[in-house]
């Protein structure tokens, strides 16, 4: 069944390749800081597959090392946002009294553009991986919460939930036993989209100089480095950018594939 779905297969293959690349880069101990001043700003060639930057560092090595940071951020944000968002969504959907408050707060968070929220959080908490993850996740939580909440609201009206109440089941056992399994499908799909978005946002933050510290190689940081020299050495920005696009594309395809599996398009049969 998994084989039949093209998007899923393609996505998994690409992601597997990225993970392998990241592992090799970490394990081989390639030095991202190895500077060779004689090799500055070299265009892509056999010696430097992706070219070199203004300090003579090999772009390919940096990009390979950056893979783990970017993927890690994406995964971490997805997990955090999904966990918090699900809890909030379940509570807001099931308990009318909590609904209003929780949704107001979610509205408030959504009122602030993602970038600003992230920058604000990072400027408070300092620039580390945890704060970046927190910053980006805080923007994604309302999206997850809203989805879970609307699923819960529609499930509340289902006869089997009412039957459960008549069978003396407590609210919590209904939420955990009946509703949670029902949202896991869409949660998985949403999780992938959140991860993709998180990676893009992290790159954007680094690009603007507000993300992880510059010595940590992330794709965004590498691109930020190459910003000023764009006319001279476009490869410094373009290669990490392309890698990022492919990785995010793979994750989006994963999400699409999962979605098609859980909810194949409605075909009318008389």
């Amino acid at each position: 069944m998994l084989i039949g779905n093209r998007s899923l297969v393609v996505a998994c293959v690409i992601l597997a390749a990225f993970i392998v690349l990241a592992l090799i880069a970490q394990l081989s101990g390639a030095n991202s800081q190895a500077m060779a001043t004689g090799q500055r700003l070299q265009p892509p060639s056999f010696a430097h597959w992706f070219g070199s930057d203004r300090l003579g560092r090999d772009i390919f090595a940096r990009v390979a090392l950056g893979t783990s940071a970017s993927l890690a951020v994406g995964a971490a944000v997805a997990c955090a946002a999904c966990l918090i968002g699900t809890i909030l969504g379940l509570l807001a959907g099931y308990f009318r009294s909590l609904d209003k408050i929780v949704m107001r707060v979610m509205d408030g968070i959504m009122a602030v553009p993602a970038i600003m929220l992230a920058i604000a959080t990072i400027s408070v908490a300092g620039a580390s991986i945890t704060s970046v993850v927190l910053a980006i996740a805080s923007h994604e939580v309302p999206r997850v919460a809203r989805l879970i909440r609307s699923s819960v609201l529609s499930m509340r009206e289902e006869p089997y939930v009412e039957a459960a109440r008549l069978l003396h089941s407590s609210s919590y056992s209904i939420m955990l036993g009946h509703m949670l399994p029902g949202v896991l499908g869409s949660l998985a799909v949403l999780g992938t989209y959140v991860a993709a978005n998180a990676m893009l946002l992290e790159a954007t933050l680094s690009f603007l100089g507000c993300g992880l510290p510059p010595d940590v190689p992330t794709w965004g940081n590498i691109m930020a480095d190459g910003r000023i020299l764009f006319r001279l050495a476009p490869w410094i920005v373009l290669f990490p950018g392309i890698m990022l696009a492919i990785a995010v594309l793979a994750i989006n395809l994963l999400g699409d594939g999962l979605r098609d599996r859980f909810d194949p398009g409605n075909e009318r049969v008389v």
Partner: protein
Amino acid sequence: MIETSAQPVLQIDNLSVALPTVSDRRFAVESLSLALQPGEILCVVGESGSGKSAMLFAIMGLLASALRTVEGSIRFRGREILSLSSADMRALRGNQLSMIFQEPMTALNPTMKIGRQIEESLRIHTGMDRKQRRDRAMELMRVVNIPSPETLRERYPHQISGGQRQRVMIAMALALEPAVLLADEPTTALDVTTQAQILKQIKEIQRRSNTAVLLVTHDIGVVAEIADRVVVMQSGKIVEQGSTQAVLQTSQHPYTRSLLAAVPGIRHRRPRQPTAGAPEILKVADLSKSYPSSGFWLRGSLRAPAVNDVNLVVRQGETLSVVGESGSGKSTVARCVCGLLNVNRGTITIDGIKQDRKRRAGIQPVQLIFQDPNRSLDPRWTIGKSMIEGMCNIGKSKADAVERAGDLLEKVGLQRSALNRHPHEFSGGQRQRICIARAISMEPRLLIADEAVSALDVSVQAQVLSLLAELQKEMQLGLLFITHDLRTAVQISDNIAVMYRGNIVEYGPALDVYSNPQHAYSRQLFEASPGRRWLP
């Protein structure tokens, strides 16, 4: 009126429509042949899955892409229509060959005004100008008896009632005086009294414009009420056809006979021992409930029903049917009794214990069987898990609960192995039995059936009803049976309460209420039951 000598206006020969390969049978419709004479009403009757709707869609050329006609011919006025181009077919639809559907609410465009929708076929097929279209639309509305056409023309579908919506659909279909009207269960989604009016309307159309009607239904009462001829379908094939009289009264075919036998009614009623002196299981006194107005958004659309000063009693081993149409408040009463809703006023006493106003559902020994068997069981849980949920909550150990669950499943006519399977592996009737078993597992004293058999086929209905009767006798349960179906109510109850707009307008022993209804509304309700005269 019926010209049997003339050429049939619609002739189907050997039609077969294939189903996608994953289905449980190969054809939706198999080698079907029938003829529709000009000006006659032909009813096609069958249970769900008989292929009757597929046949209608094949005629209109509206089959979903997953289904395809593999062979056969359909001739409309002598002309073969299966091989027509889509442009030619479009020219016929809405023009000479029209169709009306089952669910009037979803069949009308929610963002378009009624008047505009009625004019739609006029816009598509004729070159009438604005005034001509308007006049014709008004005329049509009068023909189908839509009240205050001037006002209703400017309204939207959600602002008018179900019966009015179906009339609008009929007006749309008849705009260009088609030779044939196809009707797919046109009255199934309507209340009994509305149903009677729509059926009368269809008969009038036949009389006025000599339109031939091919009407598909699962309700034999409808057939008895308006059909000139009848076709009986089973699993995609025609098993019998003939005049209504012949089929309904003197049919020899086993399937037809079983269908007729399964129709509930007073003739099936078994003598019931009056339960004198039996203790009261349920006593409802002065029950009132109203829903708070929902604020800005739902203003103007149909308001939620209220319940007003309702009094009833159910004794041990007794069945009380609460009968009413949609909006009568009967479901609200059921929900208040079992605790899913809080009441505003009044008392509910169960087994001698007065219930608190704001009590949690499920403390009392009451259980409820829901209407939709497809949604009463969590689709992701195994049957076993669903069955033991309640028992574990009241303190039974898991092992004991599983054991008892197996026993109960066997009691309702299923196998123990069902415990490990999922709801989608069972039919509607089987799922309803599982729900009954689940309800019984809680050892209730009162069982409420909220339209519990309304969504089932007639033959399955009969089985479930007999199961309920058996269990009631064995466990001495009180049964509160909520329904809109008078036939069933009369067949199974000791007492009947008729509800109208939140009030009980009639209350008494079933036979008395049936043979001699006192209140005007009850009389109207009983009169409206389709096919009452032919099939008691």
